[in-house]
């Protein structure tokens, strides 16, 4: 198991957001966390990346283990640099007044000095040809879908082994959404482990190998994608029908 979350309990102030959730991610898998608004999906990702307050909640119980070792005391910059976990955050949060290329360059902050990155830029541009067309354009002038591609590309440029994606389909037109998910599938086939948080449960489950269903801070169902897609209760509550 690459990443393991055990009985995680977190609080924002006095409000408990996660009531002891456990899940794990194996190497080479796509795992998805689905659930309604306020279920604790984004909170789980923020807790894993150890972001500083005020974004991140306080861990009051449980543990997060990376390859068997607790990462609760690791600094967020070290999570990216040493553990190769990269987050593509909700709302993209790209650096708007930098160009596309500069955004990608900034992501190489984590890399070793003097590492040869030309091949990696090429790989990102191969994956997202639109970014190559617009590489010298200010990134705030990109469309929503292109910004999302940039956010994913930026996370990949950190040299990550596990990609954490927070609602990558948010605000995307259906065509772009499917295109993005095809790219994620392609990435996974090349060996990337992906933890995907998604509102669009149907789409996420069709992409993922396994899934967890969150509801107000607890895991109410888990299993392979086929099981969850076939589960009548999940279907009724989250898949709309």
């Amino acid at each position, binding site marked *: 198991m690459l990443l393991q979350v055990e009985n995680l309990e977190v609080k924002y102030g006095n409000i408990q957001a996660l009531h002891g959730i456990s899940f794990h991610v194996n190497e080479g898998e796509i795992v998805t966390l689905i659930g309604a608004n306020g279920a604790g999906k984004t909170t789980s990702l923020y807790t894993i*990346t150890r*972001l*500083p*307050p*005020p*974004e991140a909640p306080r861990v009051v119980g449980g543990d997060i283990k990376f390859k068997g070792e607790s990462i609760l005391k690791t*600094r*967020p*910059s*070290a*999570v*990216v*640099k040493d553990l190769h976990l*990269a*987050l593509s*955050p909700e709302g993209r*949060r*790209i*650096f*708007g*007044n*930098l160009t596309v290329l500069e955004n990608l360059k*900034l*992501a190489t*902050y*984590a890399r070793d000095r003097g590492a040869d990155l030309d091949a990696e830029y090429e790989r990102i541009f191969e994956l997202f040809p639109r970014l190559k067309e617009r590489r010298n354009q200010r990134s705030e002038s990109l469309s929503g879908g292109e910004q999302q591609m940039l956010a994913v590309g*930026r*996370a990949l440029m*950190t040299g990550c082994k596990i990609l954490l994606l927070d609602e990558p389909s948010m605000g995307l037109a259906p065509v772009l959404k499917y295109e993005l998910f095809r790219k994620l599938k392609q990435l996974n086939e090349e060996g990337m482990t992906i933890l995907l948080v998604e509102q669009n449960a149907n789409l996420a489950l069709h992409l993922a190998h396994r899934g967890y269903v969150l509801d107000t801070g607890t895991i109410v169902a888990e299993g392979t994608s086929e099981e969850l897609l076939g589960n009548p209760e999940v279907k009724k509550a989250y898949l709309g029908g």
Partner: protein
Amino acid sequence: MKHHSLNALLAIVAVLLLVAAHFGWIDNYIQIVVMTIGINIIMSTSLNLVNGNMGEFTCGHAGFMCVGAYVSSIISVLCFGSKFGDPMLPAGSVLFVFPFILLIGGAVAAVSSLLVSVPSFKTRDDYLAIISIAVNYMIISALENMNFIGGSRGFQGMKDTYWAMIDIFDGPWMLFWVINFTIFTVWVIRRFISSTYGKGVNAICQDEVAAEIMSVNTNKIKIINFMVAAGLAGCAGGLYAHIIGYVNPQSFNILKSTEAMVMVYLGGMGSLSGAIISAILFTTLMEILRSQAIIDGMLSPVTFIFPDWEPSAGVIKWVMIPLLLVIVMQFRPEGIMGNRELSDVFPKLKKFYRFK
């Protein structure tokens, strides 16, 4: 040619100034103005590092200047003065020791910046502004209550160091040091901003969380950035103390911090050349408005209507300068240069020098 044009220009200007001062072509008053410009350039460019490049909002920069001024004054008096007993060092070594005295003052100021940078891990914006004002007051009050260095009466005796320099060679030494430290400051800041750390600083300015998930260690960058800024302000304080020959805690109060802030916002946030230009402009304007004749001339339409009113330049200056700031903010809220450098505004300058 391309690599040395700016350096050569700076060297020519510096040598011309020094020669002019040495042979008395420019009088003491102009020399003091030039030195004040130099100190203000150090203050505005270093504050620009925090308020402009990092996007934090601090308004207690004079506090660090105060620490630098006092520390370097005390060391200077210990080494070459007679106030605390016999001088510890031979007067002949003053030219080698003096830059280190200023740098030690800067180093202590840099350490004192932890008082602001550590709280800045968790607070931003208005709250950090309050913390920085509080730190400014803490520093002033602490020094006012230290009787062995004069307390609120101030501290003097640094002129002994200056006389020791004059004994070696009778020249405009303080002007020499100010010019050198100003160039040093601009060089340090330019190198810092174009380094990898500088990229991290800019990332923090735009989005702290995004910077953190790009593996920028925001706490470390904040500490370093505050230390560089405060350290340079400390050097400026040391220079100021040795020019005037007297320091008083109250000369580094919130008004002085505000002056530095005005220069940063006038010049444009995050623009190094903007900070330099506005420091020159601001200091010159302050000196011009010191003249009673000019103030009388400017206000003649008003005094014509109200003949009983006799405006005093020292007071009206503080109406004119804030008014200027109001006008600038109204019509050009991004400041003189905005976020751009001189080489972005005049791309032809790039022919003469590589700015990055």
